[in-house]
């Protein structure tokens, strides 16, 4: 990757340098907006498949319970989609407001993906509106069919966005000549190697987050004694999706980790806090990375485990943080903590999924244990935490680069002043928005 570093030093600012940039505020604002938007994306990815599935049950049986459930879910989905559109627009604005030099330099390389993503979610907006407002108005078959584009465009939208994120981690499709980006090859840029594991991992995450959150809502009803067909159907459908996806996610996570090992070894080193390149590298569970002493303290070291996980070879060589100068290393503690949180929760969710699946295998019914349902209630928020932790892992793990080994985040940031004010305003707005959405969803839930 030495060639990449040469390129990084050689990339001059497209818009010219500015005064001392408010880099940290900019990163925090971006992180906050992403953290608010991504859970809504999960619903956009997975919820349509769920309510369409339930409508399918209705069409097969004529049972009105299924129709009521599908109708209810589609209305909630529409509201969440609307909030998702709004938060997504903020992100689009922030790309320009916070990272004008990134956009000015590379917009012509990756921008096309957002054009395609815009089209996908325009189509999704159209068909979800037709679907929700068209209940009773369209023939049952036509109505069901209008739900299909919603599912497809949910996938297509995430495809395009992840393509850009993959590109940021594995840049290609352009040259740097004399400090300037030349010869942009947009299609090469977008179909890059890093995006596939990211895409599958995120797509499954959508189902896990949505499934467990919605199942959690109905689990509360279950725990309060509601066992009617409506609640049972809701639980079975959402839990099937989430509980089957959760173990698969572990396998995909393994693939992702191995991919990161090949492409971004320093990021992987930060997952562990591995300083020296070594064979048979350990994985340290817990603990804190001490920057001064350059080692993990108070953790439980499991020998050879990192080599095994990262390369499937107990004695494989794993690159350490020392392979790059200190200014090229990501903040280790943030990345470590986020990574281990994600893995811990992911493991818990997979085990919960196994309980559900095994119960069904042997007894052909939902579990009866109250503890199971309490766990499901917890699983929703935990899945959300894992989702955010995962994104923190990959985004902070890529620092100090905004485009890996090509452009630093500090080169990309706006030179405009006063970002603290913007940050404060954004936090306030999200708090107000969040409480409004929460309040409204509670009302909707109470209405049954």
């Amino acid at each position, binding site marked *: 990757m030495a060639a990449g570093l040469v390129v990084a030093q050689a990339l001059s600012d*497209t818009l010219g340098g500015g005064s001392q940039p408010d880099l940290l505020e900019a990163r925090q604002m971006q992180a906050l907006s992403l953290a608010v938007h991504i859970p809504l994306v999960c619903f956009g990815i997975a919820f349509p498949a769920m309510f369409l599935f339930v409508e399918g049950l209705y069409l097969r049986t004529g049972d009105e319970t299924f129709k009521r459930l599908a109708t209810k879910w589609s209305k909630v989905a529409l509201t969440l989609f609307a909030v998702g559109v709004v938060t997504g627009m903020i992100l689009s604005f922030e790309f320009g*407001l916070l990272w004008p030099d990134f956009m000015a330099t590379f917009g012509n390389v990756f921008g096309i993906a957002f054009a395609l993503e815009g089209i996908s979610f325009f189509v999704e907006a159209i068909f979800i509106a037709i679907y929700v407002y068209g209940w009773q108005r369209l023939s049952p078959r036509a109505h069901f069919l209008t739900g299909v584009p919603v599912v497809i465009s949910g996938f297509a939208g995430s495809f395009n966005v992840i393509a850009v994120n993959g590109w940021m981690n594995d840049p290609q499709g352009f040259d740097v000549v004399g400090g300037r980006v030349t010869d942009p090859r947009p299609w090469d840029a977008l179909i890059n190697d890093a995006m596939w594991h990211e895409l599958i991992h995120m797509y499954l995450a959508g189902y896990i987050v949505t499934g467990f959150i919605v199942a959690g809502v109905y689990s509360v009803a279950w725990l309060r004694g509601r066992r009617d067909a409506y609640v049972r159907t809701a639980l079975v459908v959402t839990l099937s999706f989430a509980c089957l996806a959760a173990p698969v996610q572990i396998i995909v996570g393994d693939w992702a980790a191995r991919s990161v090992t090949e492409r971004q070894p320093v990021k992987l080193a930060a997952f562990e806090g591995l300083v020296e390149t070594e064979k048979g590298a350990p994985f340290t569970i817990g603990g804190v990375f001490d920057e001064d002493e350059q080692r993990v303290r108070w953790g439980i070291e499991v020998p050879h485990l990192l080599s095994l996980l990262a390369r499937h070879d107990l004695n494989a060589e794993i690159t350490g943080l020392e392979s790059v100068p200190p200014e090229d290393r990501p903040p280790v503690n943030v990345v470590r903590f986020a990574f281990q949180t994600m893995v811990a929760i992911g493991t818990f969710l997979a085990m919960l999924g196994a309980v559900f699946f095994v119960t069904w295998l042997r007894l052909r019914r939902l579990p009866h244990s109250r503890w199971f349902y309490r766990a499901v209630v917890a699983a929703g928020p935990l899945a959300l935490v894992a989702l955010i932790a995962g994104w923190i892992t990959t985004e902070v793990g890529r620092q100090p680069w905004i485009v890996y080994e090509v452009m630093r985040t500090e080169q990309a940031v706006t030179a405009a002043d006063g970002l603290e004010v913007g940050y404060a305003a954004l936090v306030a707005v999200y708090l107000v928005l969040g409480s409004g959405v929460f309040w409204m969803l509670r009302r909707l839930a109470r209405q049954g």
Partner: protein
Amino acid sequence: MLPGVCLALVMVGLTAYAVLGSADFGAGFWDLTAGGDRRGGRVRGMIQRSMAPVWEANHVWLIFVLVVVWTAFPVAFGSIFSTLAVPLFLAALGIIFRGAAFALRGQAATIREARTLGALFASASVLIPFCLGAAIGGIASGRVPVGNAAGDPWSSWLNPTSVLIGAIGVVTGAHLSAVFLAGDSRRAGLEDLVAAFRARALGSGVLAGVLALAGLLVVRSDARELFDGLTSGAGLACVLVSGAAGVGTLALVAAGRHEPARYVAALSVAAIVAGWAFAQSPHVLPPDLTLDEAAAPDATLAAVLAGLGVGALILVPSLVLLYRLVLRGVLDQRFEPLDQRFTPLDREERRP
């Protein structure tokens, strides 16, 4: 050639957003001024009914504009967003509030909650067109240089031209939405509402015209090159078409011909957007950055056009389907007068 085509796409998107989006914003304005229970209830109900199926699809045009600009004209994009960070950030906040307030207001249980949401909705509906208009004014009057926040963060959008264009944006939005709502009311057979919106359309239309004329005077002293661009050649032609269409819209509304009025009003907006582009030509960021300098390499432009072309094959039929269903009334929600809580008035009366 390719840069010109991409720019034309941006202008089309901007026009679509200006027409459809401002109709939404204007609705927020009328919503605020709709008045109390009885009087305002029917107006509010009509607004809710018209907006509900299409309002998200409307806002996607703005994203479309952003995305094409940042792909095809990335240096201009970076310069605009760094210098005009304040109005664009305010517009973004306004968009959050507006969307949330519209999505949430059906759930308000008390008058106070509903009033808060309604006020939020309406104030955002005024803030957004003003800020976006002011940003456009900043670009048009040559106050956005190439560079990372190279222009002044305040005077780039708080200057005579910007303030004027911002005001025109707000009033035009109010006017467009009144024209559209009059048409929707006619289709729904609610003649009292037709009259209410007709009055609003005429009033706001006249005001918009006055502002536009005053505007030319302001621009003449504040941004001479822009004035010259608008009063000669293609720019002048567009200004004249826009003015004629504006007057035509008023005439059609006064005569009760509400369906044609929609299209003529849209034409008026399209003409002035085109006029702006011609007035600035060949610059994207006057006075320094021309279209050819700003444009990305051909590979990117071709990719944009190809991608959008394929996308259009899917999108256009979908949009046609949506608008046909809307216009045929298939997606219409039941019209019901709404009190300030956005609960139907009759439901209120039935409660003991």
